[in-house]
């Protein structure tokens, strides 16, 4: 599904990603974890083509993404900060994204699910953070694409909506899709992720299942395992 070889990215003097190799196979939920500034967002943005790598090859669905933009047709992306053009109404934003992607969509179902009907005629600028995130979720899940990338999907969501989000993700997974998630909520990872990609100082420090991680760190609780991974490295 995603194939990354020898990826380098520098922002000014700051080497964010170096010699990064990663292979993500089709199907399943992958959690991209790591401390702040480890390059999670950069990695995701590289996959999306928003960040241009200095070196290395990146291919999605078997095709190199260099000078290519059509492959994004196959990706649904939920950005971290859900800020939209303030003058647009929710309805218009959804219509616009549909217009831009020209793909079949099931936004009505999602709107009902998340209870967004009352907000459809409101301008995005007037919405609360949580509601914006719901709109964000609608925009992401309304298309049927084989790859879904979620950057901090839980931000601002109330518990009920969080549950609905989890259901949504599981449903997509059951269709055999590949889902990439970054988050800081360990409970969420533990519950959802099939595999963990742990990033540290611009490289993959660990890739495997939760069980493998616990075995490696000799911890029997996920949160401690993650903590141990970090301390382990700081000690090292």
């Amino acid at each position, binding site marked *: 599904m995603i194939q990354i070889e020898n990826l380098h990215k520098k922002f000014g003097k700051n080497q964010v990603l170096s010699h990064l190799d990663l292979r993500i196979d089709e199907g399943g939920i992958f959690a991209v974890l790591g401390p702040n500034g480890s390059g999670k967002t950069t990695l995701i943005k590289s996959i999306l083509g*928003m960040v241009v790598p200095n070196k290395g090859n990146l291919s999605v669905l078997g095709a190199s993404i260099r000078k290519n*933009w059509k492959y994004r047709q196959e*990706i649904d992306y939920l950005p971290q900060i859900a800020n939209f053009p303030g003058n647009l109404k929710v309805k218009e934003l959804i219509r616009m994204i549909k217009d831009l992607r020209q793909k079949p969509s099931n936004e009505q179902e999602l709107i009902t699910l998340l209870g967004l009907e009352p907000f459809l005629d409101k301008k995005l600028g007037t919405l609360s953070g949580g509601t914006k995130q719901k709109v964000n979720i609608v925009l992401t899940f309304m298309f049927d694409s084989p790859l879904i990338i979620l950057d901090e999907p839980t931000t601002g969501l109330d518990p009920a909506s969080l549950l609905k989000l989890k259901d949504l993700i599981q449903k997509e997974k059951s269709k055999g899709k590949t889902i990439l998630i970054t988050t800081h909520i360990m409970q969420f990872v533990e519950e959802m992720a099939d595999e963990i990609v742990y990033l540290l100082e611009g490289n993959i420090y660990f890739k495997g299942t939760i069980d493998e991680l616990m075995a490696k760190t000799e911890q029997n609780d996920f949160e401690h395992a993650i903590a141990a991974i970090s301390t382990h490295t700081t000690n090292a």
Partner: protein
Amino acid sequence: MLKILKYSFYDLMRSRWSYVYFLFYLALGFVLLFLNHDLSKAVITLMNVIIVLVPLISTIFGVMYFYNSKEFTELLLAQPLKRSSIFLGQYYGVAGSLTLSLILGLGIPFILYGLFQSDAIWDFSLLLVTGAFLTLIFTALAFNIALSNENKIKGFGYAVLMWLFLAVIYDGLFLLSLIIFEEYPLDSFSLAATTFNPIDLSRTLILLKLDISALLGYTGAVFKSYFGTNLGLFISLGMLVLWTVLPIWRLAYKSKRKDF
């Protein structure tokens, strides 16, 4: 690109600022006509105002829009869209709505005052063409500055400085160099110097229309062929096109290589 243009344009058409800009020009047009009672005089006053004000407004508006629509841009970047279309679409959206505000804002009062029956119509059309060019150029320059500066305050500062430089300081340096080197033949230099500043270029176009009598008072042969024939008009228009195309091209080029 056309879709982005459409959405940026709609977005702007709904924003308060487009109306402020539109109403400002409307008011300017009416006030000038009310004070002068004379179309030709109002057009001349407007020309003086336009070559300074349009660049300023376009610059500020362009920078502001670029920074304000950062999230929108990021949303679009994740969509299956070409990068250059995203930025060019936004650029044309802004420049288009600014131009429309200018044309409507000034056009309505002048048409109500009987522009079509007046012989000032050519001057007025020139005014609008110049205004449109300046809008395109300065919006593009503003977008370039904003694209190259992540820091809003810095970007804003550079943009205003650029305006100040091109609108005032450039001419000051220009005048100084003409006076310092007055013993040397300067006509080619002075004509060349006007082409390196889009505001001066637009000024030249206006001079050709309003002050041709004075321009022909200078003895230099180069001046004579520049202002006396259509050469000046074509060169100025050509350079204005170049001034429009180059920043747009850079915008497309830079946007392809930028990280978000």
